[in-house]
């Protein structure tokens, strides 16, 4: 050893393992415009598909005449439900146990529903063909109000199941009813409410919105008639699931389906499910014998491929008069549109909504969700929601503020009084979830101290007085949100998608020269997996991250996985990666012992090598051991150095955070300006802080959009009025606030590297924080609940109702 020999710390730094701000591998191709997205794919003989859509929200389809369309030069075929019936694909099963029309079969149930699929030699010919398909409709009464869906005489949306008294999730109480699902203890909770000093009840609505990734949904389907094999490239967050489901419904054997998800331009849950366009492209390829590309427009995307939220939550809290929560009750109507195409775990049609008791120590709670059908686009779960956690967090965080107001308590103080305490972890909630770890009080106190919370409240008070004296027309609001997330779906005992357990996987192979490849069952759409999984491997195996190639998305080579959504990659495949590494490390240790002629137990691990205890000069680096694995292994041992792990998580993980927001509302225009937004997140072990910050920035920006203006709005005639970027509010760099990020770290005790996942936390915590801030601005005037989105005209209308415009 001499001064030139790197120290352990220097060697660790050189690996670029967990905890460092490793620059992203993906960027090299993206900044040069060399990403490989679905629409970049070119194949010889490629055909293009385009979809004819219904202008009506609810109508019978009397006839479809494709003659003129088929005569357009370049149009090769036009597919309708009649065509699909010949291969039993006019309807397809959804991930939620329902069925969905692929193309209109006698009826259309929402505006822009798919009616016919035109296939042509060029995009132009396909578009021309779409214009010439003649469809005769007979309009039917429309219902787009979920609160009216189960009334007597409401229009029948689903004639196909009208008389079915049993749905996929139990008994149906009305022809427009999808499911009832509840959790918690109703009797105990009702009793708590009956005895309570103070109660609040509020209808808290989380409007319908849409994830709107910048790249829309698209695919290229190529069926090889000779081999009987289908290759399907697509925007798939869960490529293996698409393959299995695709096999079950098409009857093409699964080993003959090659699903490839290349680079994906953002997912946010929009790209989990299977859509009509995919099925039609596959059938079109089978029928024509040529590859077929389908790319949806933005308007098609916003109005038909999934949606998010549309939860109408009547939320109640019971409390003692000095502010201790006693019980929580929540009755929700969930609008699923025309078909329940939610991508939930099978047993939970309302996802993980029962996280609705949030971060607070409720002794008892009960929630009930009724899903209903309306004349709107199908779906439900999406948009960085962790399976309805965004909805639950919004309900509880708004309700806590409303209760604090009734009690005359500060919202932060009220939370501090009721947050689950550190010593209660692992904590079993009133709904039965076992929260893994957390120190909530430290987090909220740190947030409050950092923003100077008390000073802000003083400033607010002074401004309120100035407002009353007519000296200012601005109201200041301070929003607080403390959320608990539940991610990492999930343990096989209760988590499956269409029967497939929600484990995930990592397969790692180290090459003779000490570099390697890792393939996983997850699929990045911008989260930086090529960079971060390599960091885990670097720390676990002592090989430089730059020497590890990470691959996802090719179902032939990647081990089976359930994909990336619900912040599950780090909790599940991240765990699988660590576990696979440890198998490799164990084998490497045995090789090292053999080479050094010592017993396994005589070795200790030091960053990137095994060394003999007490005699550190005698060591073997992992790189040397890799070569040895191919060169000379101990007698009786298989050569090679690789491992696969399928990880069945023992529990979900529970990231959490404390967010504080300051807004200034212009009472005369209704505009809200975000003065400051501070986000403290705890995601357990932090793999790449740079990427974590990026996820927070992005998620908060989506939350900002949702809280301040996004909605997918239907009028009462079934017209979707916000289906283009003219009206669907995507903030630009000008509107978007600056984000301050901070953190605490409480590792997950059950996760191999203590990591919890982070992607969706900012959307979960951000929306209630913004909404609480705007609401807080009007609290002193007696307003209890302003409904979001808090766009200018709604805020102005609330101010008008409060008599603020003189």
């Amino acid at each position, binding site marked *: 050893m001499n001064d030139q020999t790197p120290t352990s710390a220097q060697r660790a730094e050189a690996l670029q393992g967990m905890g460092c701000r490793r620059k992203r591998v993906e960027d090299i191709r993206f900044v040069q415009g060399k990403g490989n997205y679905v629409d970049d794919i070119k194949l010889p003989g490629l055909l293009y598909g385009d979809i004819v859509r219904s202008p009506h929200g609810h109508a019978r389809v009397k006839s479809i005449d494709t003659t003129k369309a088929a005569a357009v030069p370049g149009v090769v075929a036009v597919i309708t439900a009649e065509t699909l019936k010949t291969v039993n694909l006019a309807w397809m099963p959804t991930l939620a146990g329902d069925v969905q029309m692929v193309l209109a079969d006698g009826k259309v149930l929402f505006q822009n529903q798919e009616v016919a699929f035109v296939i042509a030699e060029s*995009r132009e010919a396909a578009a021309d063909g779409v214009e010439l398909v003649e469809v005769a409709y007979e309009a039917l009464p429309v219902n787009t109000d979920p609160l009216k869906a189960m009334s007597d005489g409401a229009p029948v949306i689903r004639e196909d199941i009208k008389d079915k008294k049993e749905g996929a999730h139990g008994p149906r109480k009305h022809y427009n009813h999808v499911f009832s699902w509840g959790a918690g203890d109703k009797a105990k909770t009702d009793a708590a409410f009956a005895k309570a000093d103070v109660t609040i009840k509020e209808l808290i609505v989380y409007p319908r919105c849409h994830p709107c990734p910048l790249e829309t949904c698209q695919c290229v389907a190529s069926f090889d008639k000779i081999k009987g094999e289908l290759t399907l490239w697509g925007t798939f967050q869960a490529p293996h699931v698409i393959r299995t489901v695709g096999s079950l419904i098409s009857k093409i054997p699964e080993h003959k389906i090659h699903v490839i998800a290349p680079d994906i331009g953002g997912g946010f849950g929009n790209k989990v499910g299977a859509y009509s366009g995919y099925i039609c492209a596959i059938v079109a390829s089978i029928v024509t014998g040529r590859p077929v590309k389908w790319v949806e427009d933005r308007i098609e995307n916003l109005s038909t491929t999934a949606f998010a939220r549309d939860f109408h939550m009547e939320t109640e809290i019971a409390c003692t008069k000095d502010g201790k929560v006693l019980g929580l009750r929540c009755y929700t109507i969930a609008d699923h549109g025309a078909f329940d195409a939610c991508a939930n775990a099978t047993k939970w049609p309302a996802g993980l909504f029962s996280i609705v008791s949030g971060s607070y120590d409720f002794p008892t709670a009960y929630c009930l969700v009724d899903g209903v059908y309306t004349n709107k686009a199908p779906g439900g779960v999406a948009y960085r929601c962790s399976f309805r956690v965004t909805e639950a967090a919004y309900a509880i965080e708004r309700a806590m503020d409303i209760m604090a107001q009734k009690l005359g308590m500060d919202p932060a103080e009220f939370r501090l009084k009721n947050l689950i305490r550190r010593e209660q972890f692992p904590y079993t909630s009133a709904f039965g979830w076992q929260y893994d770890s957390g120190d909530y009080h430290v987090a909220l106190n740190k947030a409050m101290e950092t923003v100077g919370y008390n000073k802000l409240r003083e400033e607010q008070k002074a401004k309120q007085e100035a407002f009353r004296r007519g000296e200012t027309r601005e109201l200041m609001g301070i929003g607080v949100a403390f959320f608990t997330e539940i991610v990492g779906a999930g343990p096989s005992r209760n988590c499956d998608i269409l029967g497939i357990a929600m484990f995930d996987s990592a397969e790692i192979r180290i090459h003779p020269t000490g570099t390697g490849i890792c393939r996983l069952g997850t699929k990045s759409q911008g989260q930086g997996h090529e960079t971060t999984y390599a960091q885990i491997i670097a720390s676990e195996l002592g090989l430089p991250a730059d020497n590890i190639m990470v691959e996802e998305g090719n179902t032939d080579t990647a081990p089976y996985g359930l994909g990336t959504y619900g912040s599950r990659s780090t909790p599940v495949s991240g765990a699988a990666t660590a576990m696979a590494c440890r198998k490799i490390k164990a084998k490497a240790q045995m090789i090292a012992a053999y080479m050094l002629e010592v017993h396994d137990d005589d070795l200790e691990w030091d960053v990137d090598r095994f060394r003999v205890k007490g005699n550190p000069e005698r060591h073997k680096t992992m790189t040397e051991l890799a070569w040895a694995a191919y060169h000379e292994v101990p007698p009786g041992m298989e050569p090679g150095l690789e491992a696969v792990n399928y990880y069945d998580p023992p529990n979900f993980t529970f990231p959490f955070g404390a967010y504080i927001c300051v807004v200034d509302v212009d009472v005369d*225009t209704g505009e809200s300006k975000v003065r400051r937004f501070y986000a403290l997140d705890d995601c357990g072990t932090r793999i790449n802080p740079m990427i974590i910050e990026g996820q927070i920035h992005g998620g908060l920006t989506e939350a900002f959009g949702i809280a301040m*203006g996004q909605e997918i709005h239907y009028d009462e005639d079934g017209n979707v009025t916000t289906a283009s970027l*003219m009206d669907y509010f995507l903030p630009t760099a*000008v*509107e978007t606030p600056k984000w301050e990020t901070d953190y605490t770290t409480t590792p997950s005790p059950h996760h191999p590297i203590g990591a919890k996942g982070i992607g969706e936390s900012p959307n979960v915590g951000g929306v209630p924080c913004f909404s609480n801030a705007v609401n807080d601005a009007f609290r002193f005037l007696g307003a209890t609940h302003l409904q979001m989105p808090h*766009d200018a005209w709604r805020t*102005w209308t609330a101010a008008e109702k409060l008599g603020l415009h003189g």
Partner: protein
Amino acid sequence: MIPGSFDYHRPGSVQEAVGLLAQYGDDGRALAGGHSLIPMMKLRLATPGHLVDLAGIADLKGIRADGSDIVIGAMTTQHELIGSDLLAQKVPLLRETSRLIADPQVRYVGTLGGNVANGDPGNDMPAVMMCLGATYQVAGKGGERRIPARQFYHGAYFTALEPGEVLTAVRIPAPAAGHGFAYEKLKRKVGDYATAAAAVVLIMNGGRVATCSIGLTNVAETPLWAEEAAKILNGSALDAATVKQAVAAAEAICTPASDRRGTPEYRTKMAGVMLTRALARAKSRAA
């Protein structure tokens, strides 16, 4: 996403353009910057069989002084308006308005002529031109004519332009030196059309309004010249009570559509708020 088919023409002179537009009648459309027309064609809301691209006509460019008037070629882009020293000096209201139109890319290509001639109630320049008392120079088969902006707008997408006519230039009588001006635009986000907007040009004399002109954007089927509201302000010191009366007069002529920007009631009130703020800013700038 894909427009219908059309034939493309690129004339080199106004005369040629006019000839082509006359020839194709309803089936022909003039193409200026294209950032209103092409999006409509992509949605197939417009399906012209012939596009007459004006980009090759040098006579339609340029910003010059002509006596006390400023004459701006119809194909001048928003970017060029913003960058013009002459306009910054003589009609600063234009730079302020241009900056509030759309986004940088659209401003590089979008033209003044396109913005004023379309008849789209959402466009910003029409109300500004009415406020300034501008005149549109128009060429057609019958020759040239001039139409005051205040008489140009008849309904949504319905203007005084006859079939086959094309706007060639906008002529603006430069407001007197020391005038106050403002364009106050309420919008949901950068690049959006106005929820409501007000353009104000005024001259102060001894602390009182000598002349005042007001234009309102996107609060009716056409841009509005709020003549009554302006009359009320003449001779006043822009005191709160008089401004309130003027605002009431402005609100009285608003008939905004209900859309995602807000209810008609809200948008009408916002026209009033924008007017109030525009008056305050214009006054602060006036000599």
